[in-house]
């Protein structure tokens, strides 16, 4: 039961590879990706009807210890600045105790 930062990124699916690389580099322990998300922003409407053009959005959620926040933000910000997309932070509490399942 310790506090974590919840980072939420919404951006074009074309950027996903870069965003994931950025998160990996910044050392966040994990993330979850919801694909085929659509939306609207002052820059326009995003639909998924031309999926081969990678024009739909992805919604990426990452939880990490608060001390990683700065690194993670710095890894993501330039990507969003260049290619578009939004990022928000909020607070959450992790409740799962360490998983006791064997793994290689």
């Amino acid at each position, binding site marked *: 039961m310790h506090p974590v930062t919840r980072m939420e990124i919404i951006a*074009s699916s*074309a950027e996903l590879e870069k965003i994931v690389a950025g998160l990996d580099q910044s050392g966040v322990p994990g993330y979850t990706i919801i694909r*085929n998300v659509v939306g609207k922003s002052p820059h326009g409407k995003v639909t*998924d*009807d*031309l999926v*081969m*053009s990678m*024009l*739909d959005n992805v919604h990426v959620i990452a939880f990490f210890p608060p001390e990683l926040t700065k690194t993670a933000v710095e890894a993501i910000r330039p990507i969003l600045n260049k290619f578009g997309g939004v990022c928000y932070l909020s607070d959450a509490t992790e409740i799962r105790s360490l998983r006791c399942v064997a793994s290689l």
Partner: protein
Amino acid sequence: MDTSLVLSNVLTPPILFFFLGMLAVFAKSDLEIPQPIPKLFSLYLLFAIGFKGGVELAKSGVSTAVLLTLSAAIFMSIVVPIYTFFILRLKLDPYNSAAIAATYGSISAVTFITASSFLQELGLTYDGYMVAALALMESPAIVIGLILVKTSSAKTSDREFSWPEVIREACLNSSVFLLVGSLVIGMLTGEHGWKFLSPFTQDMFYGVLTLFLLDMGLVAARRIKDLQKAGVFLITFSILVPILNAAIGLAIAKLIGLSEGDALLFCVLCASASYIAVPAAMRLTVPEANPSLYISTALAVTFPFNIIVGIPLYFYVIRLFW
């Protein structure tokens, strides 16, 4: 111009279903074909057209006619974006000009496929290597577009393209990859493969194309309101430039002695604009350009124009001169 030609094109299920899709949007019906159904259709169409082209290429072999046609194809896909760029620069900034130029330099596989089914209905044939031309013309415009951005944009310093990434986007994007792959496999397996695959790739082709054009009608109509942003210049552009490209294409086709069927397909390749591969590439490589401009013109104007008016028009001209 022979109106029966237009009618015989318009009064076919694929084109009528395209209209039906547009009508659904205008009438505010809730008809939609959710992803990934359209993706399935487009994978199927690329697979089927590529495979068929390959099988036929294996039969005909690689002659000078083939090489000549493919050279012409590459030539056009390099030249079109360049002169198109300078036309666009009259009104637009370099980013949008380059992105739109790349769009019109590349091709639309569905327009090609619709033209091929137009030929089929008229009982005309075309050569398998036209599919190779289709594949070859998809990518060069992407690279040309980027070079145009690079050379014309002031702040060149902070633009370091990752060229390997650009080439990958251009040559390995899913539609080019699947098309070329199916073509090569068609060549390798020839008649034997055809015997087993044709009930799937041949018999269902027309039906899948029809359903896909229904979806394209929906998609195109949804973009029509984006055209307001595009303005009169771009809308005029997206009808006149395809006609110009088609005319140049026809001249070249005549010059290198293509058959009627091949000439129509070549001309359609020149006239069509990409709304799949190029937008996907531009989204990442020229993020400054506004996607709604290059997509809406290619999809909501040029695509319907070509499949409804363009194909019979170009064919009419071919009939005059061939």
